[in-house]
């Protein structure tokens, strides 16, 4: 056995010249598939497409793999202490397990080494162009795509290559969502978005206000409780703070034991409330607001320490921010506090700046495409998005199966076109479908999926594509 090297990198000199609509040269890459991004989702796309016999060119704007988990990357949202919130079996790729010797909730550095090993094990790096940014993706005749790239940072010439299909795996946790407030410009303290928070030293000895109680906000509030001289934590609603362990096992595994038994949502909600009552009890006695929703109706927070530090008085829960004054922050209940540092852990928004929003059925350009299985676009059978999900589990198993489905779809286009056509019809009929129970209306829940519902939907799609 020798390693295969047939699908090299695109070489504009060696390929037949064609021209695109503005008359610039395009190198035709034949049946090759283009993957945008070499984060977790991009890597599994390369692996699965290769495994199904396709050639792949992947473009990555950074100089290494791992995307968000590579904290050397300028857009990486991870901070020094980031540990997984989903336990190992919820996070790993289904065909490449994390080592037994790792803890239940590994550190972000371990995750990076996991992706690097995945890339080396399956020999993926030889298909990746590092330091190359995709700046335009345009549909052309025959369901093919012109992909224009240049060196990251805008240096060097633009190059366009034509591909049989495109997988967009550019991630959706890098473009900060910053709320607007009256008086923010006049505020004299330091303000930052969580994406630029890297190390607790940034908080040491200061009075800190953390806004937002996603997993990021909760982690940072806990670090502020340990390092800062004072910590306020502002949330615009109450939440369910789940511990990382219950009944002696990682909490997500316990929940999945119930899912496997198909215990109904209402019963699981009741069990959950009951377990909480047995442990921390009613959180409103600490001044935390009562949740305005049932558990599982907001993206799950897995943090055993937040409630602990609230109980120690290290974290002071406060309501939403009303406005900023030069030396104070006014809260919704009229109180004023005087933080020196404000950290906005208000989440991220998806961005597809290289694609005309209409391709995605996102005419408003809000970054919220209308897709089937959060992956397939009506009218564009050779385009797929990988990883545009906010699961109540780890993401990577889901990206894995998304890209397996896409690879099988491309095979069907070649071998059994009538099945691919039927698939395209289902994409049109079902675009916009949701795969979770009811969730609170917020941009953070645009892509919220229940992993079990979602995986079953993918499985059905695979069976419909390939079954008798």
């Amino acid at each position, binding site marked *: *056995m*020798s*390693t*295969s090297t*047939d699908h090299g990198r695109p070489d504009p000199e060696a390929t037949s010249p064609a021209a695109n609509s503005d008359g610039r040269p395009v190198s035709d890459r034949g049946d090759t598939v283009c993957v945008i991004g070499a984060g977790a989702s991009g890597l599994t796309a390369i692996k699965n497409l*290769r*495994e*199904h*016999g396709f050639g792949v060119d992947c473009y990555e704007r950074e100089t290494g793999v791992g995307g968000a988990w590579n904290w050397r990357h300028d857009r990486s949202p991870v901070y020094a202490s980031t540990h997984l919130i989903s336990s*190992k*079996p*919820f996070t790993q790729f*289904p*065909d*490449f*397990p994390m*080592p*037994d*010797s790792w803890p239940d909730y590994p550190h972000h550095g371990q995750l990076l080494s996991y992706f690097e090993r995945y890339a*080396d*094990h*399956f*020999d993926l790096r030889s298909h990746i162009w590092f330091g190359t940014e995709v700046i335009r993706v345009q549909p052309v005749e025959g369901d093919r795509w012109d992909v224009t790239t240049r060196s990251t940072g805008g240096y060097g010439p633009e190059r366009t290559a034509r591909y049989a299909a495109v997988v967009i795996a550019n991630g959706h946790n890098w473009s900060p969502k910053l709320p607007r407030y009256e008086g923010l410009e006049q505020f004299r303290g330091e303000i930052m978005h969580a994406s630029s928070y890297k190390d607790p030293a940034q908080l040491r000895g200061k009075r800190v206000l953390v806004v937002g109680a996603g997993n990021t906000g909760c982690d940072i509030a806990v670090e502020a409780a340990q390092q800062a001289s004072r910590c306020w934590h502002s949330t615009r609603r109450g939440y369910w703070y789940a511990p990382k362990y219950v009944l002696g096992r990682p909490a*997500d*595994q*316990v929940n*999945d*034991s119930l*899912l*496997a038994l198909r215990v109904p949502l209402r019963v699981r909600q009741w069990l959950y409330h009951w377990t909480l009552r047995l442990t921390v009890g009613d959180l409103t006695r600490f001044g935390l607001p009562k949740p305005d929703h049932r558990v599982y109706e907001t993206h799950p927070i897995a943090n055993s320490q937040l409630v602990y530090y609230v109980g120690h008085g290290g974290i002071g829960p406060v309501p939403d921010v009303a406005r900023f004054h030069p030396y104070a922050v006014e809260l919704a209940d009229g109180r004023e506090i005087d933080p020196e540092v404000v950290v906005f852990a208000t989440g991220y928004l998806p961005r597809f700046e290289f694609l005309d929003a209409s391709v995605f059925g996102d005419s408003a350009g809000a970054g919220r495409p209308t897709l089937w299985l959060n992956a397939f676009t009506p009218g564009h059978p050779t385009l797929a998005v990988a990883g545009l999900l906010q699961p109540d*589990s780890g993401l990577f198993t889901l990206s894995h199966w998304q890209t397996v489905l896409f690879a099988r779809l491309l095979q069907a286009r070649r071998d059994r076109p009538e099945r691919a056509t039927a698939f395209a019809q289902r994409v049109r009929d079902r675009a916009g479908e949701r795969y979770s129970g009811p969730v609170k209306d917020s941009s953070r829940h645009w892509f919220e999926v229940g992993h*079990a519902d979602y*995986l*079953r939907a993918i*499985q059905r799609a695979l069976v419909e594509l390939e079954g008798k």
Partner: protein
Amino acid sequence: MRGREWSRPVRPARREVLSAVPELEEGRPPLLFVPGFGHGAWAFAEHWLGHAASRGFPAYAVSLRGHGGSEPAPEATLRAYAHDVVQVAASLPRQAVLVGHGAGALVVAHALARYPARGAVLVAPVFGGWGVLGAALRRNPAGTLPAVFGGPLRLNRGQLFSSELPDEEARRYVGRLGRAGRRAQWALLGEPEAESAVGAPPVLVLGSPDDRVVPASTLTRVARRYGSAPLLFPGMGHDLMLDARWEEPIDAILDWLEKEPVGPGGHVRAVGGQPPAWWTAGLPAGVAGWGTRASEPVSVLVRRLIRPPPSSRARR
């Protein structure tokens, strides 16, 4: 959805892995040898690991939990064994070829559903079922009967080795045999069907028609499941890696790996030249020659060797 993999992951266990790595990295895929029940990694360390390394293949052997130098695990299941194999395979630097012997071949078959191996080799595969038990009861009633009731399975020299192997060596090997978990032994009776392999790896099946554990009919049946015919090494016992002529089967495996340049997706690149004698050893008379066309899945290619279409007959 594999609910159990999410909610009830296999409990980790300390594993013994022995290896022999070539001095010069030649870009060949690593081999991971998986011993059958009762055997440990030592069974491959005797000859095959070193031999594979001397031909440029990095070679590793794992002791399934409860075997050899791995952690004791009397309650181990087949699923736990497959977990051990996938864990070691994923820890290797590159995509590995899994080589399972005896019931280790069944473990490999299960592991293939959880790990996209580069290829797989099933040596004297024990896939379970009452037939295997019957054969074992006939040949070695005293050693087998206790296993039916959850006791240890005691294999004897006659079952494992040919008479060519010097007595003293045979005794030494038999003395090192351990036992598999009770639940895993029982699982064998149920002929546990493995989920299909991921990534469509090419699979080679080999064994001996004179194996007293695995009847030749089983070899054919297992090989057919993977769309091929078994390679046969007459005159050898069940433990092909320890028996007197251990070199022939391992050379055959390495030749197969060298001659079948398989890329991801299991496609044959270039096939040519005359096959060595072992290639045709297990095939019906009248069939000789590699397959012909490039880029055809291996399984198809081998199936064609069994029932050659007119074109390949004409070529002879």
